[in-house]
């Protein structure tokens, strides 16, 4: 079989790239275009960056005989989302110096800069490095940022799981020296350069890396705010008396699909067993290598682990995993997830430390008239001795706030018009809403998401308030395309862009992230969305049972059938 397959274009590019170098050095230097050579646009992803254009201007600039306004999105890895004040300040500076003066907190707890010009790539990446941050493996066919929300107020076991998160992230970081050569002049202030001085060798990935991206997330029940079932590999922490014992292992989650191709589908991960904590890194590595060897390298639309699993079957996969491990996974242990959202406002941890969870609309850190969030956070970072924690829901926790800083943080936020207690200002619907970047920079977007969602929410909130649902948490997620960056198929309300101003409406996902939603209506415009949702919300307000979430209610009332597996998502 291996001899006859026709590898996809990207496989050839990776193979010829000499461990992700390609012709990037020449591409970056070419002064005639703001773009890279076509092959290098694949490779730059492994370095954490996507080449994009300002799509608002594409047509105008073509007429002006100018090439598209090329710029780069750069994604900085933050395993578990924990960044220091110094790192926050550096990202804030870089956004102003080279980016578009905003920071995006992603749905995978990473920072994104947008609008970086090719000629500024090197300085920008050096800027990360000086603050002990990096963008390698931010994108590309490798393990991406490892997610875990170390909600410090929740339990002591969180610090233990955070250590596991960091260990997995470090273990699965590519070993190639290309990143350091290309961007850092071969020097690194970052202490954990893998395999320094050993030359290029990828013991886990091999020279063609994985067939496609690979995502890992961890969670401590009952909170599933990292949406672990949406990941190729999800790890559910099992604890006893505040001590971490091990993890339930879930495999084969993934959101992306392609319109018009019913054999592509979102899928939630299946739990295949339990592993003690000291063997979890090994399990991650072995699962990655199975996907490396078995994943589809002909058609990237079918390359994710979820399709590998449904092709070979879960049992065959488990056998192979046990074989590679040299021992068998134990039976999964009981656990319960309650929710997948964030809790806003001040909280106190078991050690008495104080934390503040801020609502960040669309994950965008920026200064707007009347809401100078970016300025406020910069001012806080100047003295805050705790850290900044990015959540998987695009929000931000000011963690471990020193008692003497409580009032000044409160004052700075108020001065800059940033609500401290999001619950008092925003409806539950807005607080739980996620949006991907979409237009104007994402090349995949068919429709608006982040720029437009606040406006749509203004209208939906009228309905919500009329129905007395202001404080009810309802998960709404919007993306500009079906690839699923904001995990739209886990939205109790999912809106997925089809064309400018047109969305498919999906309904009925579980509140705790354990059930996908289902297509309800196609190609709705704004009026259509509001008209379709209004009677459903009214029905929910009147006829729900105690504690019943919106997604569960819609299923019980028969508005949509429950999606029990990715394979019946389209049915």
């Amino acid at each position, binding site marked *: 079989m291996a001899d006859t397959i026709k590898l996809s274009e990207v496989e050839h590019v990776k193979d010829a790239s000499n461990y992700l170098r390609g012709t990037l050095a020449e591409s970056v230097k070419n*002064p*005639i*275009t*703001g773009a890279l050579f076509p092959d290098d646009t694949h490779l730059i992803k492994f370095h954490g960056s996507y080449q994009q254009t300002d799509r608002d*201007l*594409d*047509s*105008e*600039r*073509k*007429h*002006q*005989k*100018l*090439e598209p*306004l090329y710029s780069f999105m750069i994604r900085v890895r933050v395993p578990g989302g924990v960044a220091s004040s110094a790192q926050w300040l550096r990202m804030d500076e870089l956004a102003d110096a080279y980016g578009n003066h905003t920071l995006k907190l992603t749905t995978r707890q990473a920072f994104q800069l947008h609008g970086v*010009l090719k*000629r500024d790539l090197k300085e920008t990446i050096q800027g990360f490095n000086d603050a002990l941050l990096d963008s390698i493996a931010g994108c590309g066919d490798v393990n991406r940022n490892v997610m875990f929300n170390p909600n410090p107020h929740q339990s002591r076991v969180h610090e233990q799981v955070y250590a596991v998160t960091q260990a997995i992230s470090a273990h699965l970081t590519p070993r190639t020296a290309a990143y350091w050569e290309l961007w850092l002049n071969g020097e690194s202030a970052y202490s954990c350069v893998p395999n320094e001085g050993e030359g290029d060798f990828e013991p886990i990935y091999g020279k063609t890396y994985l067939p496609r991206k690979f995502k890992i997330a961890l969670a401590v029940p009952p909170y599933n705010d990292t949406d672990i079932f949406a990941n190729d590999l999800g790890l559910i922490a099992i604890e006893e008396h505040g001590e971490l014992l091990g993890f339930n292992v879930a495999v084969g989650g993934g959101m992306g699909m392609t*319109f*018009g191709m019913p054999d592509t589908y979102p899928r939630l991960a299946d739990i295949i067993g339990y592993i003690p904590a000291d063997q979890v890194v090994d399990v991650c590595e072995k699962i990655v290598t199975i996907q490396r060897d078995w994943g589809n390298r002909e058609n990237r639309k079918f390359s994710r682990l979820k399709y590998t699993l449904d092709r070979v079957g879960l049992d065959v996969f488990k056998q192979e995993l046990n074989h590679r491990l040299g021992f068998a996974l134990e039976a999964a242990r009981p656990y319960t997830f309650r929710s997948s959202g964030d809790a806003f406002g001040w909280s106190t941890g078991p050690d008495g430390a104080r934390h503040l969870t801020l609502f960040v609309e669309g994950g965008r850190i920026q200064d707007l008239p009347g809401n100078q969030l970016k300025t406020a956070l910069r001012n806080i970072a100047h003295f805050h001795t705790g850290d900044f924690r990015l959540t998987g829901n695009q929000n931000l926790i000011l963690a471990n706030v020193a008692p003497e800083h409580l009032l000044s943080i409160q004052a700075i936020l108020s001065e800059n018009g940033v609500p401290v207690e999001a619950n008092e200002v925003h409806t539950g619907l807005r607080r739980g809403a996620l949006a991907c970047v979409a237009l104007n920079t994402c090349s995949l977007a068919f429709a608006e998401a982040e720029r437009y969602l606040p406006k749509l929410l203004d209208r939906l909130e009228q309905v919500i308030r009329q129905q007395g649902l202001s404080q009810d948490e309802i998960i709404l997620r919007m993306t500009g395309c079906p690839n699923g960056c904001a995990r739209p198929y886990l939205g109790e309300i999912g809106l997925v862009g*089809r*064309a*400018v101003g047109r969305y498919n409406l999906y309904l009925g996902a579980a509140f705790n992230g354990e059930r996908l939603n289902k297509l309800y209506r*196609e*190609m709705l415009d704004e009026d259509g969305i509001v008209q379709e949702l209004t009677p459903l919300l009214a029905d929910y307000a009147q006829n729900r049972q105690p504690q019943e979430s919106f997604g569960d209610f819609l299923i019980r009332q028969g508005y949509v059938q429950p999606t029990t597996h990715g394979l019946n998502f389209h049915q």
Partner: protein
Amino acid sequence: MSSSSSITLPIGFDEATLQQLATGLSDQQLLWLSGYFYGRAAGDAGSLPAPQTAAVTAPAANNTLTILFGSQTGNSKKAAGLVADAARQHGLQVAVRDMNDYPTKELKNERQLLVVVSTQGEGDPPIAAEELHQFLLSNRAPKLPELRYAVLALGDKSYLQFCQTGFEFDQRLAELGAKRLTERVDCDVEFEAETKRWAGQVLEVIAQAVPAAAPVTNQVSAKVTLTPQPQVAAGAVELEERVEYTSHNPFAAELLEKIQLNGRGSTKETYHLEFSLAGSGIQYEAGDALMVQPVNQTELVREVVQAGRLDAGAPVQLNGIELDLQSALTERLEISVLTRDVLERYAVVSPQHPRLREILADKAQLPAYLYGRDVADLLREFPVELSAQHLAAVLRPLPARAYSIASSLLAHSEEVHLTVGAVRYDAHGRRKHGVCSAYQADLLTVGDAARVWVDRNEYFKLPQNSAADIIMVGAGTGVAPFRAFVEERAETNASGRNWLVFGNPHFTTDFLYQTEWQQHLKHGTLDRLDVAFSRDQQEKLYIQHRLLQQSRRVYDQLENGGYFYVCGDKNRMAADVRQALLTIVAQESGRDAEYAAEYVKQLRKQRRYLEDVY
């Protein structure tokens, strides 16, 4: 040297080229050549079109097929590939072309054309197809009576405007007189099966036509075009009727297109203008200039009328023609700047202002006074009682401005393109505008006619020897003639290398004609492009720095008989480039400054160092 320099050579010739041509020829051969060239010149209009027409008729043979695709996601490209494969199996010669790179002027040469195009969003063409689509739907599209075509439209049925772009191509080609080979097919998301079915239909129609019609018509048309007689006659008639367009008799050229070339956020304001010369018979060469007769802005006319406390309707006599002051100030008189002669005449009619005579008397003061002032400033500063007629007599006629032509007639027949930088600044309390650039930037809109004529630039011309390398150095709008040069050398397949050195403030907003240069680089019609964006880094970086960085390359090309052209700002840029060239020659020759000066002087004498500066 001294004897030959007394001979007056015609434009574009130099001693060296002539020597090169004549080397090793006997007297007999030289005599024969003189007759040959005389005959060729006399044949002129007659002999040249013949091979061209032959070239055009070649693709008319029915075994050739052009497949033109406009793709956004790659599906149309894929579909075009499927059709091409099928067509090749039918023995057709297939050219698959991307609309994005397709010169619209080639459309009229097509004989069999398959269009494969998708539709975006709510009925828009893909970006790659926009230009062709716009051209085709405009009234500039040529009649296409000899074209046979078919359209395959790609789309998504869930959209309201399903396959709209394909529909528009299909309708418009029919309107232009082209004949459908087969009905259009609109494909939904799954396009491959439909594509193959449609390809089968089209190819069947083509196959039916080939054996009977093709060879016969081909021969006939070839015979006709090879007969020179009627063509010469037509050319001669045209020559007799040709009108000479001058300042006294400008041509009213319709503005076909106006494009702001600077991206958003630029501090510059540069326009690309395309004028029609249709029906004028106007010919120009790359390197020539176009004279544009401006009119003054209404606001400025009002300022002048108010400043002079005059009546806009007052009658004025100008060169025996009577018109009102408003029209005289708008169309006939220069009011946007002050010149010495106007100031002198004004001083005469305003004896109560001795200060005016002081300014005029002080040579050092005068330019500083004139700078940034216009007629309204003068009338306000030194008020006098003046009639409309008196004012008209003081002012001077509104002159036309010259712009280096930015197009080649070979690439854009019956069109002339300009690159115009809008001149605007604040001075003496008001916003001031360059009269002719503002006329084109603010007043002229597509469909309007501008009064124009050609001003020949005798020396700023491409080398006669098409194998000679050229180095073109231009900043800002100075790039204009080089667009014409490169187009001309591309159209004539000149083998010499074309090297452009371009500068402007910012890469993202001020890279004039960026995508055209990229295409030329891709096709090899531009050998090298160096850019200097002065404000994209801490230290300012200009084109002369780029030349110095490429010192060896510059010198080698000059040593190899290359030509060096400079266009743009006279005072700063041209002087800096000249200095850089002196440095380069001294450095690379290993000789002293005196040698370098002589070297550059010789380049000038040989007309290999040429400037078009302003």
